[in-house]
């Protein structure tokens, strides 16, 4: 806890790899040749040709990642403006407008949440936008403490950027907009709570804007992804770059289950913990989960991963499509927010089905698809400890 109460640690650029001269040492190269006969990578199918791998990366960037982060930045900009308007003229209508902007920002975020690459690894951006999981309700405690303290220094751009990460993003703003005392935002004059909300909204917009700009930076991470090769410091060949894209649907499904679904629903109604469901205060749990899944499915479609899978293993992609369809239907059929439905024996059925379907989907995407696409099975590299 001490660590989390400490100010957010500013990122320190240690040594950007893009600035380094990239010369492989002979001692690295020589034995590589020596061992080629022994160390062919384990593949279940022929690898995709390089131009297909490069197309996956290029299409993912152009049609999913950049548009997705642009959409997030745009939504967050609207959120910042509407929150400012709320504080300038508190009313039920302006609170509604701010809440709508929050929901739209959350939807945009959820669509790109599992793209945890390059710009999203910089400056703890992903954690600052969405501190989760939050097993110990740190957001709640930090927000309540900050409201009680009412420090004017916190609700500035600088103060917010230095604050505990639990205060900086969507969960904190959700509490301010929907948690106990939120109704006061609709009745003027605007107080500390509104200034706090405006600072968080501004911070979200700043982080989202910086991430989107970085994805467009012609000399940034995207450029490295697009130009794999022996001189590239991060991606020595087309497959090493493409894997960073093709593994997103599977790792995303895995994270969604481990971090959002399973902790909240438990093994049965008595074991469910509705308070651990994400965005339960705003009632946006189900919407955010749906947007997560739509984002993962959309990335696979727009990057050509689904098409490549269909080409190599039509039945596998059929299976993926069917499970996605049923998963969306199961989400739709939930009678109420996920956490509440999970805790109610009468409403538990679709929750169990959702748990089963997402497990099947994770298996298809994470355990079966890489092999079908002829990707290397890197046991230690991708799941080490």
């Amino acid at each position, binding site marked *: 806890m001490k660590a989390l109460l400490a100010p957010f640690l500013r990122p320190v650029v240690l*040594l950007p790899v893009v600035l*380094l001269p*990239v010369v492989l*040492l002979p001692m690295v190269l020589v034995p590589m040749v*020596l061992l080629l006969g022994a*160390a062919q990578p384990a593949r279940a199918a022929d690898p995709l040709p390089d131009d297909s791998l490069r197309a996956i990366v290029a299409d993912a960037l152009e049609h999913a990642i950049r548009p997705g982060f642009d959409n997030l930045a745009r939504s967050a900009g609207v959120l910042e403006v509407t929150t400012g308007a709320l504080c300038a003229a508190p009313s039920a209508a302006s609170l509604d407008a701010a809440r709508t902007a929050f929901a739209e920002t959350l939807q945009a975020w959820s669509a790109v949440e599992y793209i945890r690459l390059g710009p999203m690894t910089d400056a703890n951006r992903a954690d600052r936008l969405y501190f989760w999981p939050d097993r110990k309700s740190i957001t709640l405690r930090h927000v309540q403490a900050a409201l009680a303290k009412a420090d004017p220094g916190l609700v500035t751009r600088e103060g917010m950027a230095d604050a505990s990460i639990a205060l900086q993003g969507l969960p904190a703003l959700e509490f301010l907009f929907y948690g106990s005392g939120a109704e006061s935002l609709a009745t003027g004059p605007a107080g500390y709570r509104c200034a706090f909300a405006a600072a968080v909204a501004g911070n979200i917009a700043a982080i989202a804007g910086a991430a989107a700009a970085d994805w467009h930076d012609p000399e940034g991470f995207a450029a490295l992804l697009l130009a794999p090769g022996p001189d590239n410091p991060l991606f020595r060949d087309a497959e090493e770059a493409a894997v960073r894209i093709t593994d997103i649907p599977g790792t995303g499904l895995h994270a969604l289950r481990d971090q959002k679904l399973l902790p909240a629903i438990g093994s049965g109604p008595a074991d469910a913990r509705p308070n651990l469901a994400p965005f339960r205060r705003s009632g946006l749990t189900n919407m955010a989960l749906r947007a997560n899944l739509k984002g993962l499915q959309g990335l696979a479609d727009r990057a050509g991963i689904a098409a490549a899978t269909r080409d190599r293993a039509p039945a596998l992609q059929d299976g993926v499509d069917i499970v996605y369809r049923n998963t969306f239907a199961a989400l739709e059929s939930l009678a109420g927010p996920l956490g509440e439905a999970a805790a109610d024996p009468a409403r538990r059925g679709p929750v169990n089905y959702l748990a089963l379907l997402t497990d099947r989907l994770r298996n298809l995407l994470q355990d079966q698809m890489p092999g079908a696409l002829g990707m290397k099975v890197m046991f230690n590299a991708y799941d*080490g400890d």
Partner: protein
Amino acid sequence: MPMTATDRRHFLLAAGASAALAGLSRPGRAAPAPAPRFAVTAATADRGYALCLLDAEGRIGRQEALPGRGHGFAWHGASGRLVAFARRPGTFAVMLAPGDGTALRFACAPGRHFYGHGLFSADGRLLYACENAYETATGVIGVYDAAAGFARLGEIETNGIGPHQVDWLPGGRTMVVANGGIETHPDYGRTKLNIATMEPSVALLDAAGGRILAQDALPPALHRLSLRHLAVDGRGIAWIGGQYEGPQTDLPPLLARFDPAGGRLSSLAMPPALAGRYRNYIGSVTASADGRLIATSGPRGSLATLWDAATGQPLASHAIEDVCGLAAWGAGFLATGGTGDLVRLAAGGATPIARLAPPGRTPRWDNHALAL
């Protein structure tokens, strides 16, 4: 998954039950089991996990099924006892005595899981295991009585989150432990819960008194370098390999050394081209039998490097697909790859020993290997 009473009950596995090698032994080979030389954890062709004993030619002499994915080991040569630990957040350990064939499965305490590494006391009586007391995210070394069926006697706090690997300093009274700094909780699978605020460190523990004798951390700019695997060289210096959780375009120094005399931790510079090849991830660190060489492996970069322990200079690097496990072997090392490759590494070169299966057919060697 919380443990049940049944899980916690110690139970004997039938000795020799693993004689049938689940299709992994070479067909038609009925020769007597060769002398085991190495222990390696593995994933098997039938989607299971196993502890494998290999001879010097890379042949599997014995394979013990594990109830889940294994990780690292503790070995006591004089009593001939080997323990393989579950990888986090697993709660099982398996003791195997290659000499007489006995096997015993045991578990850690409720509210604890193994991190996957441990060691025996010099006399073989006590077993120490790196564990997570996960409700409070407290790092502990669990202590087990080898003379009483590995009953758990208690624990020593490591003053940090995520103690991943532990080794003895010369003399076998003081242990050096790498607190990886990453908080996890079994309710959330393997999710890393505190990357933004992690505080890895290296600590010296007095095994008898359970006290922290010294502790140090790298500068704050390196707080997202999880210090995980370590080995002590012939001069008593601990070499620690890190896994970086910060921006992908950073290139932090991945190796650090801890000098017990001064109680200080310091980064070791790597030639930039070599550092880049590691993809910010060192999977294991092992000392040679004579303590003069250190080997590091980088599964993400498919690279293993031998280091001169005295000068801190890299001597040679070898490209091995998905390499992770490293065990001392003569003047050099055995390196194991997730592809099934076994490679002998010496400062002068690398020689493939065996590839036990065609691509896609396991065993795929898991993260760690050990010299028996």
